[in-house]
């Protein structure tokens, strides 16, 4: 049985423009799926529609079954129990995804308290453990800081800790490393990979970066201007793309890679 079943999902804006058209895919428990495409291809909107959190003015039609609950058209009160517990989110820019006025420990404590019903020193312990799990140094100091007082990579680790606090079965990561620099990116990806494998979670990894996606999943859905054009293993998509867009996408990724490799070979990156 599938954890997530998306069938002919469309997202339409109030002026009638279809931003996502007739997208269908499934995610089984523990399965990882990459959602790739250029910006504006509707991959993030598809991800938000999964959890019923589309921006104002956008409307979803079709069917999204998340853990046997219909998300499309469901009232807010049916969706709140799903969020965080069944499915949670990691955002591209951790600085804006964390409340600037709230201490990070306090922010992290919120979902932990709600999920595990802890209070007082037990809650504090759990918060520090959660920070430790995402390999943050000095958990006490981080818990006592606000989001702008720590580095970008540390922020994303806190965001990951928050997303995992309620032990979700599906993690949606929306370009989680795009805002980070390359060295930090690698560490965060390794951490995500490890945590998702460790807890046997399913994951939807949204990215425009084929190289990053191929590190996290071996299966991807390629999206272009709101439509899913191809689904397959990353190896297949790269080696024998059936859709011309996938070929183009793979070729551009390869071009960047060769340009990078030759720049390194010349000894001065451009």
């Amino acid at each position: 049985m599938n954890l997530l079943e998306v069938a002919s999902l469309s997202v339409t804006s109030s002026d009638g423009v279809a931003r996502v058209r007739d997208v269908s895919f499934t995610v089984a428990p523990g399965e990882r799926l990459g959602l790739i495409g250029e910006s504006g291809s509707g991959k993030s909107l598809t991800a938000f529609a999964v959890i019923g959190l589309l921006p104002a003015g956008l409307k979803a039609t079709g069917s999204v079954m998340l853990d046997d609950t219909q998300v499309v058209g469901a009232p807010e009160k049916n969706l709140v129990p799903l969020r965080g517990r069944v499915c949670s989110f990691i955002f591209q820019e951790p600085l804006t995804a964390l409340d600037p006025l709230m201490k990070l420990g306090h922010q992290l404590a919120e979902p932990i308290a709600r999920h595990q019903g802890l209070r007082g020193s037990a809650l504090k312990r759990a918060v520090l453990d959660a920070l430790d799990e995402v390999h943050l140094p000095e958990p006490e100091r981080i818990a006592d800081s606000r989001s702008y007082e720590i580095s970008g990579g540390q922020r994303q680790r806190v965001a990951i800790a928050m997303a995992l606090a309620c032990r979700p079965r599906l993690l949606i990561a929306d370009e989680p490393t795009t805002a980070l620099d390359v060295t930090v990116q690698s560490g965060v990806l390794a951490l995500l990979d490890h945590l998702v494998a460790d807890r046997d979670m399913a994951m939807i990894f949204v990215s425009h970066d084929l190289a990053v996606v191929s590190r996290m999943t071996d299966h991807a859905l390629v999206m272009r201007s709101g439509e899913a054009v191809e689904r397959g293993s990353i190896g297949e998509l790269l080696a024998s793309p059936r859709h011309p867009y996938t070929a183009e996408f793979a070729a551009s990724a390869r071009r960047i890679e060769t340009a990078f490799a030759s720049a390194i070979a010349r000894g001065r990156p451009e």
Partner: protein
Amino acid sequence: MSTMIQRETSAGADQDGAPPPDGRARDRRSLILIVGLLLVGAIVLIAALSLVWLPYAPSDTTGSRLDGPGLAHWLGTDRLGRDLFTEIMVGARIALVVGLGAVGVGAAIGIPVGLSAAFAVGWLDDTMSAAMDILIAFPVLLLAMLFVAVTGASLVTVTVAIGLSLSAIVARLTRIVAKRVLAEQYITAARTSGTGWLGIVRQHILPNIWPTISVNLGLLFGVAVLAEASLSYLGLGAPPPNSSWGRLLQEAQSTVVTAPLGAVAPGIALVILVIGVNLLVDGLRDVADPTQARAR
């Protein structure tokens, strides 16, 4: 203070390279804060003192008419021979009580209304913001006068009247600020983690709008004090024996040439309180808003 220092040192270590706070700007800030504290503190002290000690019983004729300032009457007497300093002290109490009460009423009504307006969409949003805009178009004083004219003047009705007039201002500000916070990604992030709307209002919206709202409530306190004085001046304020500064001004009007202190003294008291509150609020803004402290 120690937490502020701590925060600034750790902000200085931020990898984004927040510039270290400019020392001179901070000194200017703390000077403003200190002057504001002194001015407001003086009025508060006088008002507090008036509860336990007054030079004379209020509204007792204790001297001859329009005495100049002297040892017996520090600021002289009014045209009925009452001690002016005594009346200024009682007036300080009234100004503070009405000011705080009015701001309290304004916040108690304005913040919930503004918050619900921030969540409203479509025609409800349009109607609510139009209603607020129309109410704001009326001067605070005019609305308060209408209300007092209907209910009759007493300390309570004056306070409620001013508070109601302020509530439209508070509501509109709350709506705007809350809408801006609602659009932030951390609200979406909180929702994806399963926080309900009530939790979002309590944990994210209220703390994030509070710096802006509290500063404005402080400024509105000044508006409320002036409105109270104006209502009293017009004879619509709290009736005697509540010697409001506005009423003192009005009573001294006819004798302003022969005994100018009768009008000057309550006028100065009013200016001290209003300017003091404005400076105090300006200085306190830093303490209330950590993100502003960082940007500076």
